[in-house]
């Protein structure tokens, strides 16, 4: 506030000379109406509020609005969709795809996050010790992050191609028969999860690595003086002290993984059949994947996903609060 006042006064006297001009005399300021500051506060907050309402509240509200009406294209254009209440949600829950989509989402999310986190943490601890070439090596691990998703997903689907893929040629050299990675309902979900794990490791690596920087070196020194080995140091120092960072990594990873569409869409389009259809893919397919956009059920599925993410967000906050209270 001081800076503002100074700038203001400066502009008044010398036409924007800068902040080194002395502040305006206080008696002049006392004449201001006290409630004027509230208007000023609102004035300052207004651009932010407008932005929030325009880009966050409105889309959310619109998504809910879509999901409780029956929007076909005609209704979408003319804006006269019938209000159907929970009907879209009832249809989603009773759909034959729902159980499979839910199970696929759970598998895809949990397995992806578990491996991304474990491998990311292992790499972060590994790179904590400086050694020759550690910086360029660490940079290499960020590659999945730098590639456009469509490139990495297409590359994975070429590598996993049943007939000409490099993975199968490699396995065949060891006498393993052809595995239909992406075209068999048994392995397709595993394959897209594998690709997604690879994509998510750098994210975990970066966040956990920066978390490690905050653990004081002398704690490790003291531990090694007490005779704790590397394994003991990890479980007694690194892991507990990294807990807050781990929690936020897992939460963000969960939100990211829940809404993954691109990787799966490029690799299998949710198929074969619906064996790689997650909730996010299902929503995308209803809205944009067929010749007939069904915005209402798509929005309903989307809202379910938002609720799930929100639920885990609340759990995270609760845990954090409990930790701080301790």
């Amino acid at each position, binding site marked *: *506030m001081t800076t503002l006042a100074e700038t203001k006064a400066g502009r008044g006297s010398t036409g924007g000379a800068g902040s080194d001009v002395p502040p305006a005399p206080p008696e002049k300021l006392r004449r201001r109406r006290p409630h004027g500051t509230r208007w000023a506060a609102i004035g300052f907050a207004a651009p932010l509020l407008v932005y929030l309402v325009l880009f966050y509240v409105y889309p959310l509200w619109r998504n809910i609005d879509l999901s409780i009406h029956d929007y076909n294209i005609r209704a979408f254009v003319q804006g006269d969709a019938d209000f159907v209440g929970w009907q879209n949600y009832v249809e989603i829950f009773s759909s034959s795809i729902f159980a499979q989509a839910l199970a696929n989402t759970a598998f895809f999310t949990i397995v992806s996050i578990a491996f991304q986190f474990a491998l990311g943490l292992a790499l972060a601890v590994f790179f904590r010790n400086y050694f020759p070439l550690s910086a360029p090596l660490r940079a290499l691990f960020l590659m999945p992050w730098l590639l456009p998703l469509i490139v990495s997903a297409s590359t994975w689907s070429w590598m996993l191609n049943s007939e000409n893929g490099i993975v199968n040629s490699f396995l065949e050299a060891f006498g393993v028969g052809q595995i239909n990675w992406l*075209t068999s309902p048994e392995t397709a979900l595993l394959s897209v999860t594998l690709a997604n794990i690879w994509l998510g490791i750098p994210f975990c690596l970066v966040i956990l690595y920066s978390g490690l920087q905050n653990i004081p070196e002398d704690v490790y020194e003291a531990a090694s003086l007490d005779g704790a080995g590397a394994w003991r140091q990890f479980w007694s120092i690194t892991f507990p002290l990294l807990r807050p960072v781990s929690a936020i990594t897992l939460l963000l990873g969960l939100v990211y993984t829940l809404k993954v569409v691109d990787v799966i869409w490029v690799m299998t389009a949710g198929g074969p059949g619906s064996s790689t259809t997650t909730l996010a893919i299902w929503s995308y397919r209803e809205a944009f994947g067929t*010749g007939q956009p069904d915005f209402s059920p798509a929005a309903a599925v989307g809202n379910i996903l938002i609720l799930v993410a929100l639920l885990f967000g609340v759990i995270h906050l609760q845990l954090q609060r409990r930790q701080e209270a301790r």
Partner: protein
Amino acid sequence: MRSTFHTATTVTAALAAISLLASCSGGDAEGEDGNGAASGTYTWWDPYPQHEEGSDWANRVQTCGEEAGVTIERTAYDTTALTNQTILAAQEGNSPDVVLLDNPAVSTLSESGLLSTVDELGLDTSAVDPNLVAAGELDGETYGIPIGANTLALYYNEDVLEEAGVDPASVTDWASLTSALEDIQASGNEGMTFAGIGTEEGSFQFLPWFWGSGADLTDLDSPEAVEALELWKGWVDDGLVPNTVINNSQNTTWEEFLTGNFGFVENGTWQVNSAADAEFPTGVIEIPAQDGGVAPAPTGGEFIVAPIQDDVERYDVTRQIVECMTTPEGFVETANTFAYYIPPTEEGQDALLEENEDLETWVSAVQEAKGRTSDNLGTDYPVISEELWTAVQNALSGSATPQEALEEAQANVEAELG
């Protein structure tokens, strides 16, 4: 120190920022309204971003505008985006004057009351082949004119067929095709490839076999339909086609074919130039029906349509623009620009064959072809199609037998369409 700043000026500044935002959006709306008024500018949307400003195609569109005494403002989107943009524009009340729309989308948009009929515009469609215009018909009204049509046929690799001792002329029905594929496999190459991906492309590729068995889209689990799916399933199981067909898009199948290891590929008119450039000699035959003869393949290609305008005065110029694009010479020019779009009128087809008689197989394939939304299926088609490609995927990947997969598909269609 809290109250040490000029309230009045800050509030003014904040308000100025807000009004700036408001005026931005206001300016936008005005600009778009400007296009809508009966000025000398007509808007034109098409799905050909590959033809940029200054290309032959763009110049031709402009010439048609000049002949009608107006300037045309052309915008190109990709196919899916174009349909969505047309819907959004109609919602905002600033539809373009002319849209080149993918044919299955015509019935979706006309059912939604977005498109004017050819009668309203005063256009004559009597010269257009009835099987091609059918995709734009709904409840007795016609909503556009096809500017060209493409469809599917079987390209073959002459070298591979020769090595296997297969004469392409001997492939006249499913049995002879299967035995040709077996011969090719025995000679050490792959028989054939097609696209069974879980999108509209999958249904598009399956339809020639589905219709070729005599099956009908209103009855997905008929014995004929099951036979068509069993044909594909048998090929996959016997290794006559690669397992990758389950996940192949049409582009992928073409790349597979260009490796030179495949006897046949099911693909479309749009690959004619690429086939001519292949490193091996190629040929093309029409897709055989189950018991001989030619199977109806689905039509692809765009319709020229005119979204409804508030200002009906505009229709007269719109009609002139459309007529300019759909003369026999215009059709041939379009055909050549898009390598190759078969003209939808007999006169146009004759003119094209005079220039390039190699396209004869394609002209006859287009004459046999059938619109996906024909038979008054209209907006039911996308629902049916989604179930159909899912059934194909389920059967080919082995999670259900063809019979089970199609029964489930039919049950889902009935549940959804009531």
